[in-house]
């Protein structure tokens, strides 16, 4: 006899809570994702490959992934710095700064998209200055990068902040007592403690950026092969009622997302084994 599927419990509400949970999960998430996979299955793996294996699709997938990686790397460095500054230092305006970190979570992506475009367009506040330096941001890959940095900004800070709060000063004091310079302590004692949380935040920011649509399409210019992101290709195929092609690209993106999710979980397992908690 194996373990029972559900342990007997006197707690009320089993049927109701299980029913609501599984019904809503199925209707909202599982069946729609199943419909995508079923569409892919009926279209056939060969056909999916032929759809995805075109220059325009590869260019879009590669662009989305590459720029998301750069944006997440920027956010990794800036996010750790921000977490450190917000937890360890006291300065006027710290609370406002702390709240501002969450703005990219709260601000609708379309709003972020048009605001960033207005800012970086050739006649915008930043765009006109950068333009004189010969640096075009809007309607180039730089613009996409800025938008992806914006949407991924909170992830690393918010995963690292609680860890910084929990670091015991004694550890740093011990390091200092043993003669380590402040830089040496930060590099060899503090950073390794922050690494697992920072990597989790990095992977979350990456996953978010790969699928991002709203904040990017306004500033991107959407030139095929150059500034066309993968989610936009899906939208274009749908507007042409080309459901098979849309599903093919959607499945490719879903696979990338699942791979990232797997990486996030592996990081967490690894860090739990290494430092005992996440």
């Amino acid at each position, binding site marked *: 006899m194996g373990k029972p599927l559900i342990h007997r419990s006197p707690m009320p509400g089993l049927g109701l809570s299980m029913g609501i949970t599984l019904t809503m999960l199925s209707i909202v998430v599982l069946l729609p994702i199943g419909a995508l996979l079923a569409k892919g299955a009926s279209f056939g793996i060969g056909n999916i490959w032929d759809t995805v294996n075109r220059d325009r699709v590869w260019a879009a997938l590669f662009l989305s992934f590459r720029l998301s990686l750069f944006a997440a790397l920027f956010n990794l460095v800036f996010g750790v710095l921000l977490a450190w500054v917000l937890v360890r230092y006291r300065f006027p305006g710290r609370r406002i700064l702390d709240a501002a970190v969450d703005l990219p979570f709260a601000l609708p992506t379309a709003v972020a998209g048009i605001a960033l475009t207005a800012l970086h367009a050739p006649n915008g506040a930043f765009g006109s200055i950068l333009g004189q330096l010969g640096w075009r941001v809007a309607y180039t890959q730089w613009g996409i990068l800025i938008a992806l940095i914006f949407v991924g900004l909170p992830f690393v800070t918010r995963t690292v902040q609680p860890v910084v709060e929990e670091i015991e000063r004694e550890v740093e004091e011990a390091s200092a007592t043993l003669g380590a310079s402040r830089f040496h302590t930060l590099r060899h004692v503090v950073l390794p403690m922050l690494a697992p949380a920072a990597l989790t935040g990095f992977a979350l920011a990456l996953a978010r950026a790969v699928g991002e649509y709203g904040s990017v399409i306004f500033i991107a210019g959407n030139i095929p092969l150059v500034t066309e992101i993968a989610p936009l290709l*899906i939208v274009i195929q749908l507007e042409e009622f080309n459901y098979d092609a849309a599903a093919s690209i*959607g499945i490719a993106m879903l696979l990338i997302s699942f791979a990232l*999710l797997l990486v996030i979980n592996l990081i967490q397992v690894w860090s739990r084994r290494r430092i005992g908690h996440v």
Partner: protein
Amino acid sequence: MSDASALARAAAPDAPRARAFRAATDESPLVRWILVAVAVTGLLVLVGAPLFVVFSEALAQGWSAAAKSLSNRDARSAIRLTLTIAAIAVPLNAIFGIAAAWFITKFDFRGKAVLITLIDLPFSVSPVVAGLCIVLMFGANSAIGGWLVAHDLPIVFALPGIVLATLFVTFPFVARELIPVMIEQGRAEEEAALTLGASGWRIFRTVTLPNIRWALFYGVLLSNARAMGEFGAVAVVSGKIRGQTATMPITIEMLYNEYLSVAAFSMAAELTLLALVTLLLKAALEMRHADQLAAFRRH
């Protein structure tokens, strides 16, 4: 050289030169100053500037032009639609979150970890792919969608589809706030109420709810902000029919593409104000009820 420091040195000739005390676990003032400057500048450029631009562009032709652009029929219909969607999707989301958290934390069953992963799944799916999934599931070309359209109950390019897309992208918000809080609180209080003969509903209302209300509010807040602002998933399922299925974010896109900058940014400013109120409430909650929020007990 002041008299005081000269006196001090005379009193303790071996003391090092007088300077501000710095603990071994602090960075030097210069390093600290540089780090704070980088943080402040970075956030001003990345977050502050876009925020400012939304309002300056909205008011580029004065208050009356902004107000006028928000009072026409299409704008009002977009605002009404967005409020309707949030009014349907957010309570459904809260009910799901409470049910899922109750099921996961009050019972022991196999596959719990899988269930939690599935609930979190929407966070790692692109909103556009989410919209695509709903189109493929309920669109006129699918078996279910065809039947529903034949019975005059269209889902895609209509309100139910937008609500479904919104539910998809906000799905984990409430549940993932409640689950850690309810795990930490354990079952002892509910079990005590049970032995005293309380009914299930009464246990929930008088024992569980007071313990989770702030976490619930926090989850609802986040889920509402996302519901009113969702663009990618809604863009795919809505069909963007002006005056019918164009939500506020979709209307912003249409106005912007028609070069109606003031109108686009005025509507954007409304959503930005909502985002700022959300952040304000969130910060207040975190300050006052940090001990009852899940976000502060992870890691």
